[in-house]
């Protein structure tokens, strides 16, 4: 009887410590004030437009199937069907009630680079902040300034449809400890070709190419050791191709071929882009040619792997 009581008490103590530990470990961590301050003066909206297209915000936050200028309206509504449930991209237009019109720069930067909402809760990584965390805070400031120039659109997108335990935002804290990092994926010497370095930034940061082209583990984290080697689509159907020079990959494509694909949507044998890449390609076509060339130079420089799916 005594023993049972002692055991019971022990379990309660361990349980409480575990809960406290869980609570502590899963606490949303905001960006350092020093990081935020380093953005300096107000961002530049015209520079921010380039970041907007590089980041592909319209692919998820514009109305499904919006074309042309309607892609600058961001009421959300695109549904992302994944193994964890369906995520629906929210309204990020300048609407003060339904969108992010009232968000400060600090709110915006914390969402983009730390996956933390203004109310302090974790955001789901279906919003690819795991890549955006590698962005320069100045670029996020420029993007913020550009988004301020976009229209306010009223109306909320439907909510996510997630089962337990994925509907508990707090649990994401553990996941973020494992997978959220602002470090580059591919180590390069500081004196590497500046084109390759610029490409690394665009691909690993705003371009978030790894979110689709890198295989994931069971919890949905990127398998960085198989970087860009292709994957079963995490959202929707089919396979996402291997971009490395390994078997099944892009060994036969020159840097010029990759840049031309991003510009025009045509492969070296003049097949055309399709699937989820079609929208990415339309975004890439809006970047300066030098950015597409940098992306291509980086893709040619990454370590080869056979197909990751």
């Amino acid at each position, binding site marked *: 009887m005594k023993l049972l009581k002692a055991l019971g008490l022990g379990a309660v103590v361990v349980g409480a410590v575990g809960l406290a530990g869980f609570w502590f470990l899963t606490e949303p961590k905001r960006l350092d004030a020093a990081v935020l301050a380093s953005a300096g003066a107000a961002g530049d909206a015209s520079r921010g437009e380039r970041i907007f297209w590089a980041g592909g915000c319209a692919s998820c936050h514009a109305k499904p199937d919006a074309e042309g200028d309607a892609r600058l309206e961001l009421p959300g509504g695109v549904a992302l069907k994944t193994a964890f449930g369906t995520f629906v991209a929210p309204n990020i237009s300048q609407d003060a009630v339904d969108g992010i019109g009232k968000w400060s720069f600090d709110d915006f930067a914390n969402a983009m680079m730390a996956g933390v909402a203004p109310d302090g809760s974790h955001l789901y990584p279906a919003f690819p902040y795991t890549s955006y965390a590698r962005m320069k805070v100045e670029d996020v400031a420029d993007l913020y300034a550009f988004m301020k120039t976009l229209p306010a659109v009223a109306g909320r997108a439907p909510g996510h449809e997630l089962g337990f335990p994925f509907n508990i935002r707090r649990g994401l804290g553990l996941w973020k400890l494992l997978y959220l990092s602002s470090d580059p994926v591919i180590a390069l010497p500081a004196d590497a070709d500046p084109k390759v370095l610029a490409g690394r930034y665009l691909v690993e940061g705003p371009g978030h190419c790894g979110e689709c082209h890198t295989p994931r583990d069971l919890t949905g984290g990127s398998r960085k050791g198989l970087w860009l080697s292709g994957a079963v689509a995490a959202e*929707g159907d089919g396979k996402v191709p291997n971009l490395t020079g390994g078997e099944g990959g892009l060994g036969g494509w020159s840097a010029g071929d990759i840049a031309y694909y991003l510009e*025009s*949507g045509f492969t070296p044998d003049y*097949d055309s*882009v*399709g699937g989820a890449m*079609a929208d990415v390609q339309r975004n890439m076509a809006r970047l300066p040619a030098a950015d597409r060339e940098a992306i291509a130079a980086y893709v040619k420089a990454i370590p080869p792997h056979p197909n990751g799916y």
Partner: protein
Amino acid sequence: MKKLLLTACFVAVAGLAHADPVADREALMKSFGRSMGELGPIAKGEKAFDAAAVQTALATLNENAQKFDPAVLFPESAGPGESGSPNIWTNWADFEARATKFKTDVAAAAAAPPADVAALQATMGMIGGNCGGCHENFRVKK
């Protein structure tokens, strides 16, 4: 008996014409790729601009594009081919509309072929947008 044989023959021949819509449409799609392959190197500046070559490639593309009859090439009974998506049949109206727009746009380009490299690049972009716009929802890498 003779009549029956004749009918059987007729059915077989009619069947042959559309024996394999999947093979037919794959061949048609490949022909589009070949025409774009004639234009690409000129648009990229790898080959000198040649108005006659551009006109011929666009005429061929148009001739083939007008053969794109969704009902004949994409009967539901044939199912998706190597890279087709089942969306084709759940979203048929959009699929047909995209085929029609593609045919109209290519016909317009063939009727007024681009006169310089810049115009050709714009034409390539416009046609490529049609290919990618349709492949976005109706093709999937398997």
